[in-house]
């Protein structure tokens, strides 16, 4: 626990000093929402039916932006070597990075969700759905974080990462979209999507953290 606290403190300190990924995530997301707002004809289409899907695709790309350079310093400067010498388990490094990235994506999602509700004049109806959405975000961000060293090191790795990540995230994104429909009052609660989203998210978080040490070792 002590090592975990120290790692998290360091990652948090860096996050406080460098907001590049947070700002680029918010900027990209806001641009997308404004673009959707300008191009979707709200007289022809009910925004409620398409906005959740568009929002989650935007969240996914914001997540990629946030996590992409998560291990830049660790890999470029050999910090990962220093931590290995100090017997720091790689799983702790993964948990710490995932936590800071998770905080970042929550901030981005909150800003974008508020912007989307404002631009499309939609209201949150079922506040109970916020917790499952947070849990799904954790699953998405943990997978993106733990696979980011693959994409960081080489170009073919980037391609490979998206081939791995996208199919793995489809069930999560589907569940997230259905839950967001409930959030804005388009449909009633669907227990099976709630269950699938939550369980899949937890499974993905655990698997990503376990896999991380093998990715780094490679």
């Amino acid at each position: 626990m002590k090592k975990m606290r120290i790692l998290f403190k360091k990652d948090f300190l860096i996050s406080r000093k460098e907001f590049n990924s947070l700002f680029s995530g918010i900027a990209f997301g806001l641009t997308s929402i404004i673009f959707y707002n300008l191009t979707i004809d709200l007289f022809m289409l009910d925004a409620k039916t398409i906005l959740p899907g568009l929002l989650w695709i935007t969240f996914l790309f914001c997540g990629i932006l946030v996590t992409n350079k998560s291990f830049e310093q660790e890999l470029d400067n050999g910090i990962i070597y220093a931590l290995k010498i100090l017997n720091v388990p790689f799983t702790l490094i993964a948990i710490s990075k995932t936590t800071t990235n998770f905080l970042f994506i929550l901030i981005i999602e909150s800003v974008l969700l508020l912007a989307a509700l404002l631009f499309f004049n939609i209201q949150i109806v079922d506040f109970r759905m916020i917790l499952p959405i947070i849990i799904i975000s954790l699953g998405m961000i943990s997978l993106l974080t733990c696979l980011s060293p693959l994409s960081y090191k080489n170009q073919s790795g980037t391609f490979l990462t998206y081939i791995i990540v996208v199919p793995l995230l489809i069930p999560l994104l589907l569940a997230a979209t259905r839950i967001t429909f409930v959030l804005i009052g388009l449909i009633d609660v669907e227990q099976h999507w709630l269950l699938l989203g939550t369980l899949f998210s937890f499974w993905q978080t655990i698997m990503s953290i376990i896999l991380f040490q093998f990715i780094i070792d490679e």
Partner: protein
Amino acid sequence: MNKAPILITSNLNKNFGNQPVLENINFEVKKGEKIALIGENGTGKTTLIKIISGLLKPTSGIVQIDECDMHNNNIEKPAIGICIDELMLEQRLSVFENLEFYAKLMPIKNPTNEIGKLLEIFACNHIVNAQIDLLSSGMQQRINLIRSLLNIKEQKILLLDEPTKNLDHNSKKTLMNKIFCKDDLTIIVATHDIDNISSWASKIIEIKNNKIEIKEI
């Protein structure tokens, strides 16, 4: 008295692809010995240092430090110090934040005190709040050395790869007079600074044609 070896390398071989870099490396280092590892560029000094530290897997062979297999991932490794090519410092954090981060991960009783002492020895007190990426390469090297020396009392062995690179004359002198000369310190230093070796080294290991030659001083 005949001391037990701290480091044993047995039949070490390392290939990069089909290219052999190190062949049949066998040597022992006893507590307090100071080894200068020399050889021309590209002969495998850094590779050997990385293999000894457990950071790089050998193609075959065993490295043991304090009877612990350095390439067995399932066991806790003994405390060692290492300073290699990579900076091992977080560029966006200050000198103190970096050193404090590493010191807290080590079993040191009073990290702040230890950091203060080493900053004083290497005359780095005035840059304690400076961000790493704003420092000159010489200053970064000093801080990297300080990082590798933080748990020097607990270290079984200290591995340094060209530690004098980018250092000014005074810092080189400090390193040789105040660190290398500690009696109970076991070190392996990969270096091209051959002129100064005799002032601190007890043994020279030269890598030539993928093999080692050991010379007593």
